[in-house]
């Protein structure tokens, strides 16, 4: 495991990507003498973003089952602001160069891999706002992949847990839902570096994220 898989070291660290597993409430509590792991003391925007009011412990799922799952997760706060993880650091030439050195070969694509669910219109993806880079969110009875140039609707909206995967390469943005390609859009320009983004919806709790892994791939 590299340090960039530990959320406390996303600021200052170098890696082929960043990853986080939201496993305890201490992560989203304020940093203090008695809680040195609080992410807002480690370059995160937890407080200013108004996100992740709670970490909810799961425990009601079946063993390794995708059909019956209840993960421990960070949970969005109603009435809070949209959330961006931390400083812009993903997808630009500078981060590409770092990944090139750590991979030993030239990165070909950037992947945001998340296990998450949404209720009440919440959204997840990359960017500083809803239509900044690429976000998936509810669109009436459907889902939609949202980019600065418009939306592409697909599937049927639900509030179940899914493995969402955004793949960015020179050809554009491709969205996979549980391993199946569901939408593609043109690659936004003049938006990088960027960061992980979640949009707060109208209902509670929304969205919820168990983990994410954003990585360069050769």
């Amino acid at each position, binding site marked *: 495991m590299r340090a960039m898989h530990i959320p406390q070291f996303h600021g200052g660290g*170098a890696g082929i990507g960043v990853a986080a597993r939201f496993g305890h409430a201490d992560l989203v509590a304020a*940093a203090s003498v008695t809680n040195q792991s609080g992410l807002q*003391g480690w370059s995160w925007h937890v407080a200013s973003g108004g996100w992740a009011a709670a970490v909810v412990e799961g425990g009601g799922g079946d063993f390794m089952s995708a059909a019956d799952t209840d993960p421990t997760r960070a949970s969005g706060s109603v009435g809070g602001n949209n959330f961006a993880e931390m400083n812009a650091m993903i997808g630009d*030439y*500078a981060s590409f160069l770092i990944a090139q050195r*750590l991979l*030993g070969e030239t990165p070909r694509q950037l992947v945001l891999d998340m296990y998450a669910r949404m209720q009440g219109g919440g959204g997840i993806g990359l960017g500083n706002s809803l239509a900044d880079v690429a976000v998936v969110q509810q669109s009436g009875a459907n889902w939609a992949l949202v980019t600065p140039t418009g939306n592409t609707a697909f599937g049927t909206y639900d509030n179940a847990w899914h493995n969402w995967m955004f793949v960015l390469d020179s050809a554009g943005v491709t969205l996979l839902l549980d391993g199946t390609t569901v939408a593609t859009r043109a690659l936004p320009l003049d938006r990088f570096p960027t960061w992980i983004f979640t949009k707060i919806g109208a209902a509670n709790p929304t969205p919820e994220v168990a983990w994410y892994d954003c990585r360069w791939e050769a």
Partner: protein
Amino acid sequence: MPVFPQDNASPNAGLGVIDVPHFWAGGAGRSYWFANPHADLVTVAAATNPTGLDGWGWVITSVAVVETGTGDFMSSADNTPTYLQLTTAADSFRSPRIFGDYAGALAAKKFLDDTMPTKLVLEFYGAFPVNGTNEATTFIGFADGANSTATCAAAIRSNGANFVLEGGAVSDVGAALDANFHLFRIEVGSATTEWFIDDVSQGTIATQTDLWPLPVKALVNLNDIYVTWMNVRYEV
């Protein structure tokens, strides 16, 4: 593009790569990284800001972090990274003083298939956005002070017209100045120190003696320096 054995195919892949600046002071390794700047890193360490690097062996003086985000995906031509900003006289950062002596090289050897390294490399992605003054007091490199035989082994600065590699007693003039981001690299060997801009050699100086170990230090006076990431590594 060179392939660095320490970071992929080596049997030691993953070992000895200190990939966060917090562990430079205490971590034994062969490759040391600083990347992804955030204001918390250059803010005084405290109970509410445990990530502040001055609590982890660094000296940080009035460094800001600027976040942009208007470049294109993976593009070197349309590129606005998040960076450390040193723009006011005496702004500086200084890493722990650990690089280039026998102890450091010997520790790196443990992570390089037990082969003694022959080079110490500083690579950084940065810019000299204000560069019109010929001064030794704005620089970045293996140095603990300005252009001096007692403190500077290999640091890049401006002479008002060109980039210069300064070695205290010696120097080498490189490409004409501009304000753009570049990939700078200094390779210190046992006898010769060579430097590169965007993988193009700029020349060499004699490797300086009786100075090591040194930190990575950046300091500005009238000129300015931006740094997005940096990597110090030993190579065989």
